[in-house]
């Protein structure tokens, strides 16, 4: 194992070295640091040109310049972006944080939704739902990123902001949305004609009721999840978690889940005071999330039984869900203030940048965190959706095919034959094994997102890695370009190694040998 890792790391380092040399040569050919001076009519043009040649060492052979760069690189110095005379290390740091924000949300959502839809699609193989998802995923997969971005800006930002000015859905719109969602649920849940009809009517009615509720309570401009909704949604989370994790027959597990919901509700009002009077930051929020997980697990332990671990798991997930709802409720309570702020003036969804200028500076200390969070969210929303749509499509395909393959295995037939419930067969024997191939794709995909969000970052004006790359290419600054390429290459090499290790850890049939 150790030999395997060290060998792979050694290979990776060699690949990095060789690729850095090739990249340096290629970048050197493709940039033109003298371009702006060639067209300059400055009176001291001669001196400017001489300066620049000297500054960039352009009279030195590119190979020698590469080794100079490599020397700096080994000492951890990526050099200086000469046009802005800014240290590349600084530039890289802030760019990576921005990209990480964007990519992590997109990746998590895409994996979660993609896998869920892919699995359902596999379970309903060759049904209308399956074909619909197949069609949709290929459609999304083939959409060019810049075009998705433009569409999202038009409908997700401009039109949605217009809608918020007077948020009223017509009866026709409500009927249409309800019918469409009813059909999707009907197709996803499948079954005989009668069941389909019930599902269609049920899902459609629920959707319509929810929309009416949103309309009636003016939810679009003053959204909230009050304790009633937290109770309803929390119960939903409890039932769903129990269903998927242990099955509803496990009473202790179900009890744990519901006591987690009750605990959350009991803490709702105290939490309001805590969140208001304590100056929040992300560390406290993370701490609170961990407390929620721990207390959920603790409840499971209290319910006891031989299988308390399962109850603890269910409790932890449910408690986390309820805590998230309470957090969301708190964020939403600042929405009205956010909308009314003069820098927003009722157009919350942003098309560009990563924050609203002068917003956070102009509000009270206690509100900074919450308004800042909303502001980040409104800026992250569209680029995240743009990235998500595309990787969602591929995850759907992967999840579907690997689930189908697993379901055809002998051990699934054995599991069914020995009388296990369908839930146990699918969730325990099918789903878990179908994740193995996905586990090897995810690291590579995240790295691809990390380096490949160039277009999305450019179009949405986010100061991340991709924009740093494009800007530096445009400015003919070789140092930041090399830094970008080295970071993405390094991540790609690491992701490959990690993928191999995960694969070996998850699948006992695979063994890593040197």
């Amino acid at each position, binding site marked *: 194992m150790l030999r395997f890792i060290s060998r792979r790391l050694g290979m990776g380092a060699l690949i990095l070295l060789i690729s850095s040399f090739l990249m340096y040569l290629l970048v050197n050919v493709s940039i033109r640091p003298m371009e702006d001076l060639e067209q300059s009519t400055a009176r001291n043009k001669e001196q400017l040109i001489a*300066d620049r040649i000297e500054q960039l060492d352009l009279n030195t052979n590119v190979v020698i310049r590469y080794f100079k760069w490599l020397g700096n690189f080994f000492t951890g110095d990526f050099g200086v972006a000469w046009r802005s005379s800014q240290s590349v290390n600084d530039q890289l740091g802030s760019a990576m944080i921005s990209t990480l924000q964007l990519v992590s949300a997109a990746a998590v959502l895409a994996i979660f939704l993609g896998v869920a839809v892919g699995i359902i699609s596999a379970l309903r193989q060759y049904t209308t739902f399956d074909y619909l998802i197949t069609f949709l995923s290929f459609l999304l997969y083939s959409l060019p990123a810049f075009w998705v971005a*433009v569409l999202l800006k038009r409908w997700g930002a401009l039109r949605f902001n217009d809608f918020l000015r007077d948020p009223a859905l017509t009866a026709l719109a409500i009927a249409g949305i309800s019918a469409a969602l009813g059909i999707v649920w009907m197709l996803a849940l499948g079954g005989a004609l009668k069941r389909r009809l019930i599902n269609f009517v049920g899902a459609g009615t629920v959707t319509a009721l929810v929309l009416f509720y949103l309309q009636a309570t003016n939810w679009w401009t003053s959204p909230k999840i009050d304790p009633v909704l937290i109770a309803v949604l929390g119960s939903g989370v409890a039932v769903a978690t129990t269903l998927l994790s242990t099955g509803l027959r496990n009473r202790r597990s179900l009890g744990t889940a519901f006591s987690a919901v009750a605990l959350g*509700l*009991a803490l709702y009002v105290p939490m309001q005071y805590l969140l208001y009077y304590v100056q929040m930051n992300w560390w406290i929020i993370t701490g609170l999330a961990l407390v929620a997980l721990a207390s959920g697990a603790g409840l499971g332990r209290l319910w006891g039984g031989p299988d308390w671990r399962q109850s603890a798991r269910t409790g932890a997930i449910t408690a986390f869900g309820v805590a998230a709802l309470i957090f969301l409720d708190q964020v939403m309570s600042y929405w009205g203030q956010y909308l009314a702020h*003069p820098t927003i003036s009722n157009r919350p969804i942003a098309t*560009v940048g990563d*924050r609203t200028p002068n917003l956070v500076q102009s509000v009270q200390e206690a*509100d900074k965190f919450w308004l800042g969070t909303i502001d980040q969210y409104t800026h992250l929303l569209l680029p995240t959706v743009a990235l998500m749509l595309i990787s969602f499509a591929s995850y759907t395909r992967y999840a579907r095919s690997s689930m189908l393959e697993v379901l055809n295995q002998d051990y699934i037939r054995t599991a069914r034959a020995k009388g296990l419930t369908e839930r146990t067969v699918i969730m325990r024997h099918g789903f878990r094994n179908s994740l193995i191939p996905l586990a090897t794709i995810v690291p590579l995909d995240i790295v691809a997102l990390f380096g490949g969000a160039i277009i999305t970052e450019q179009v949405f004006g986010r100061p991340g890695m991709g924009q740093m790359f494009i800007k530096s290419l445009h400015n003919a600054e070789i140092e930041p370009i090399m830094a970008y390429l080295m970071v993405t290459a390094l991540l790609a090499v690491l992701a490959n190694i990690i993928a191999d290790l995960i694969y070996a850890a998850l699948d006992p049939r695979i063994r890593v040998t040197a």
Partner: protein
Amino acid sequence: MKSNRFAAATALVAVGALALAACSGPDRSADPTTTGGTGEETANSSITIAWDAPLNSLNTNSNNGSATQNAIVQFLLDDLFYTYDSETLETIPNPGFGTIEKVSDSPLQVKYTYADGVAWSDGTPVDVADLVLDWAATSGNFNTIDIEEAMDDEGNLVDVGADQVAFNSADPAAQLIEDFPEISEDGKSVTFTYSKEFADWQYTFDGHTVPAHIVGKRALGVEDPAEAKTAVIEAIENKDNASLAKLAQVWNSDFNFTSLPSEPELYLSNGAYILTDYVENQYLTLKANPDYTGDHKAAIENVTIRYIEDSQAQVTALENGEVDYIGPQASADVKVALEALGDQVETHFGVEGTYEHVDLVFENDGPFDPASYDGDEETAKAVRKAFLLSIPRQDIVDNLIIPSNPDAAVRNSQILLPGSADYDQMVAENGSSEYPDTGDVDAAAALLDEAGVETPIDVRLAFNADNPRRVSQFALIQDAAQSAGFNVIDASAPAAEWGTLLATQQDQYDASLFGWQSTSTAVTESDANFRTGAINNFGKYSSDEVDRLLDDLQVEIDPAKQLELQIAVEKELWEDAFGITIFQFPAVQAWKPTLQGVRASTISPTIFNEFWNWSIATA
């Protein structure tokens, strides 16, 4: 029983929840910010402007800091001795800041006087120390080492010894001032003496300086502003290299930053606005300077500059209300997108400082070189004229520029910007009328016929192959010139090699198609394009008459005579068929209709020009 327990549990939860809902959390209605009372005034006097590249230096007089993205911010921060009128590009004096006055023609002496009350935002008065430091730095006359040899590959000045002076700048105009200037008693005015007469004396110093007392404080450790200024002036007057070396280092690098520096002294201003915030790559915030006494008073209290590189993203941000004023790179797509917004925005199409032109090569044994015709100057000239005549300039403008700028027109002057005050007179008198806008293929064919040269003549046209607009232009030129008797050959190079090809490999091409950028209206600016052997004279054009006229122009101080000389130069150029100008690059600005008084200029500071006339209409 199962369902009973379930129902009971649900009921319990629901009742509990309702009970809890009756209790309420902390009362936030008392928050002053939730009412938004103070917000509205701010909204009425705020403007957000999009720009494509972020600020990286507030010392625009250094080679490193001289870029448009820095100049526009400095334009809002600092006052100037003069500004440009947006339309005519005539200079407008700004007595509220100071005056420039020529006190003697021979020797040329120019006196700069600061107005009373002009001060940096820390309260220190702006005075001659600032200007003298600027002169010392930009002239390069105080550098003890060659700046080029002192830099490492990252552009840092490293091998500078403790007493080596290396200001990173060299302005040929400031260089002509060799002697230490005469400073008035009150420190408000200073008189510079030029070592020779110089036509563009009024453009040598526009008033942008860095605060000398801060440079003095940081470099020499003198805390008191007045003493720091004295120390700076003394170091310059006595050529104290040990002090000058430290001053140079501070001057070169301390004012470079990409986010708000922790020390406010690094972003002092003396004009309408003060810098309040700068978030890297995101935005920069300016607030009206309460202590400003000059004439260019901020009309809008808060200005935010947002950095958005993508042109389409700028248009969308304007539509979404995230920015109020944009000046994106003009293209047909941007024009369509803006027109789709209808009356949501005001749009203005104009031109920017760069112009497209074709230059011919005179010394490469090619078709335009007399040597190819056994030294027959007249034949070579006829061939050159015929080629220039065959270029379909109006077609190029119609097909490639009108889609971005509906008002675009053919440019007919080698020196003056269209729209500038004397452009019309120049075009009427410079002989460009010999070359109609539409081109004249028949006249071209007739000229070739008359000259008795064998057709078709091969002409290798060099251009940047990675620029689609130039590729289209080449196709149009090739097509039109064919009927005149020219076989235009593609001699383009990819972007990476194009610069070298243009500047050094004249044997590889006979004509070149590219753009020159004007950055000021200084009359000596185009000198290097036409003078024998000059750096921008890629076609190796050589005319004794033009050289003589340019020499005269360099030292001509009277504006009327300057224009006469410029016309005379152009007459020669057009007569010699030096080359031909085609069009001015298109520019576009768009803004919210509530914003009024917007007038963008062709040259820097483009969309920020005349910011003191902006106003926001209350709807």
